[in-house]
């Protein structure tokens, strides 16, 4: 057991740190505005130019074939440098793992490089009004038609959809609760998009209505009826780790520790605790990366990570507001975003059920 980075890993860290120091843009407008969206997209293109937008992907798709450790190093440097949020997040971290694992060579060839450059920006379309936590209750459906499928139904909480070029999600191709779901990619062009403004007034989400939106057979991911399995599999593999890397929480904890210098010791105590918890998540992730690189699956244990980082993030931002009082401008966006952490990607109530039932083996 060790915590030592190899010479190559140390060199990679320095390269990333140096490149970011030279290319980091000034603070960009919110990616949920047209202007900000364009700016974030341009930043993704610049990252891609240095093969830094998706370092863990194979080189042929615009990555560096980097190890999970390298990816964690990249993330630490990226967030420590205070770089912009990733407008390509949904595609790179939700869709791409499934594409790499279940996609055809043509699909990977066709979509990954454009995704890496931000040419295409993907929106996720998981939830439906009546199926929030209960994904298997989805009712949107796909009907076969010459050359492909027509999508019907109603999705919501689709992040980035207000400006995205493409989307992906599960649609019913038969009645079976799980086996009836198929994983579709689709162009946003013909989807009726109604932006949903969030607490901050900006449309981070949208409602999507499909009335016969056409998508070709070539945009079905995996086999028909395999959608649920594909979505779950990637949830419990890399995605369990890559959804939120430790780097961003370490960076937040450092900003918080700075704020706490000279603060009341009772508050400084809480800030120090947050920093240590961010380190715990970092160390735990190094252990998880090791297991994944050895070919193991994380499985339901990924739920423990989701509970831990989402509640840490919330505590950190709430503490920052307590430390800053009405001077908290610089933390408000992060605070509002952190509030969603225990909700999205499976509420923490669901996650605790998973830990209790599938990790600890308690009865359903």
């Amino acid at each position, binding site marked *: 057991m060790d915590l030592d980075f190899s010479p190559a890993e140390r060199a990679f860290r320095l390269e990333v740190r140096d490149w970011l120091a030279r290319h980091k843009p000034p603070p960009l407008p919110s990616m949920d505005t047209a202007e900000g969206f364009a700016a974030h997209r341009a930043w993704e293109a610049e990252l891609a130019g240095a093969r830094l937008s998706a370092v863990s992907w194979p080189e042929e798709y615009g990555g560096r074939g980097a190890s999970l450790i390298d990816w964690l190093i990249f993330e630490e440097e990226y967030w420590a440098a205070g770089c912009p949020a990733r407008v390509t997040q949904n595609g790179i971290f939700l869709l791409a793992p499934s594409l790499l694992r279940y996609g055809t060579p043509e699909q990977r060839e066709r979509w990954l490089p454009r995704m890496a450059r931000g040419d295409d920006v993907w929106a996720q379309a998981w*939830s439906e009004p009546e199926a*929030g*936590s*209960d994904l298997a*209750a989805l009712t949107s459906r796909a009907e076969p038609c010459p050359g492909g499928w027509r999508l019907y139904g109603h999705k*919501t*909480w689709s992040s980035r959809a207000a400006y995205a070029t493409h989307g992906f999600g599960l649609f019913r191709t038969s009645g079976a609760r799980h086996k009836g779901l198929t994983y579709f990619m689709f162009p946003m062009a013909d989807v009726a998009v109604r932006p*949903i*403004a*969030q*607490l901050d*007034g900006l449309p981070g*989400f949208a409602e999507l209505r499909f009335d016969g939106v056409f998508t070709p057979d070539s945009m079905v991911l995996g086999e028909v009826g395999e959608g649920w399995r594909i979505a779950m599999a990637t949830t419990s593999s890399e995605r369990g780790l890559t959804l939120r890397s430790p780097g961003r929480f370490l960076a937040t904890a450092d900003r918080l520790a700075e704020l706490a210098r000279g603060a*009341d*010791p*009772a*508050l400084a105590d809480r800030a120090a605790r947050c920093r240590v918890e961010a380190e715990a998540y970092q160390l735990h992730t190094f252990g998880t990366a090791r297991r994944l690189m050895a070919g193991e699956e994380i499985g339901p244990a990924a739920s423990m990570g989701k509970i831990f980082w989402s509640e840490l993030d*919330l505590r950190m931002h*709430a503490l920052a*507001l*307590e*430390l800053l*009082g*009405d*001077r*908290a*401008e610089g933390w*408000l966006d992060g*605070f509002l975003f952190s*509030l*969603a952490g*225990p*909700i*999205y990607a499976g*509420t*923490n*109530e669901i996650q*605790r059920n998973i830990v209790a039932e599938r990790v600890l083996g308690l009865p359903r």
Partner: protein
Amino acid sequence: MNFGFSDDQLALAATVRDVLRTHCPPGSLRAQRRPAWEQLAGLGFFGLLLPEAADGLGLALVDVLPALEETGRACLPGPVVETAVVAPSLLADVPKLGSGAVCVGVLPPGQAYAADADLADLLVVVRDGGARVISRPDVRLVPRRGVDPCRPLFEVGWSRSEPLPVPVGPALARATVATAAQLVGVARELLSVTVGYARVRTQFGAPIGSFQAVKHQLADVAVAVEFAAPLVYRAALTVGSDSAERDASAAKAAAGEAATLAARVALQVHGAIGYTEELDLRFWLARAWSLSAAYGTTAAHRERLRTAITGRRP
């Protein structure tokens, strides 16, 4: 020993509640800066705490506490505490104060920005233990981003200002208690709205309110509010005494924590929809957060309590 509100005190609250239900509906929070202000003025609301010599009713803070709780429950915008609670003890000699015609803003110590300063005819600035009053023409305001859309913040500058001869401590203690009462009202509304949602929203084939994880989170909110309120009531009773500051801090810290817990649970139980602009819930969430930081953050009040109770300074 009679630790419960009198019929008069509750009747006043009921009246205010009715007025707010009619004139400060959730829709008005999107449209108006000062909904129900005239109607409250019509009730004599802004003169309740004014000495009779100043055409007020000369009531005690505790008499209006349930009414203040209702302003929180309705998420009433505007500088209500400043005009109805702070002004009577600092600016009692200002003519027509009781009529609500004069709108007052306050920049409390330890705060960088003044809430609702754009509405203030008179702005009270407390710095270095002393208070000065500034009239609208002499004020320069720079908008600052805050968490509460109905309680905008402003950086304040001024050309001329009048020193206030009266000690400012008592007025701030009263404002702190009044804000704590509003926080209790905000927390109660967040709880009841969330309970209502949990009863109708179904997932996995059952109302989410039937899941024990949801029940227990909401029970914890109920307990937090139930035991924060008495501290607020006590603080209203002791606001003139030696323990005024300490009791006000206990009230504000407990009410702020109950309200932020209520907000946290409300959002968690509502899920993604609670996070949207179109749901009215957001106004109460924002109020819980903004009032928790008003007239001393929870942390500042906890520090005061620690010093008072254990003698332990940082």
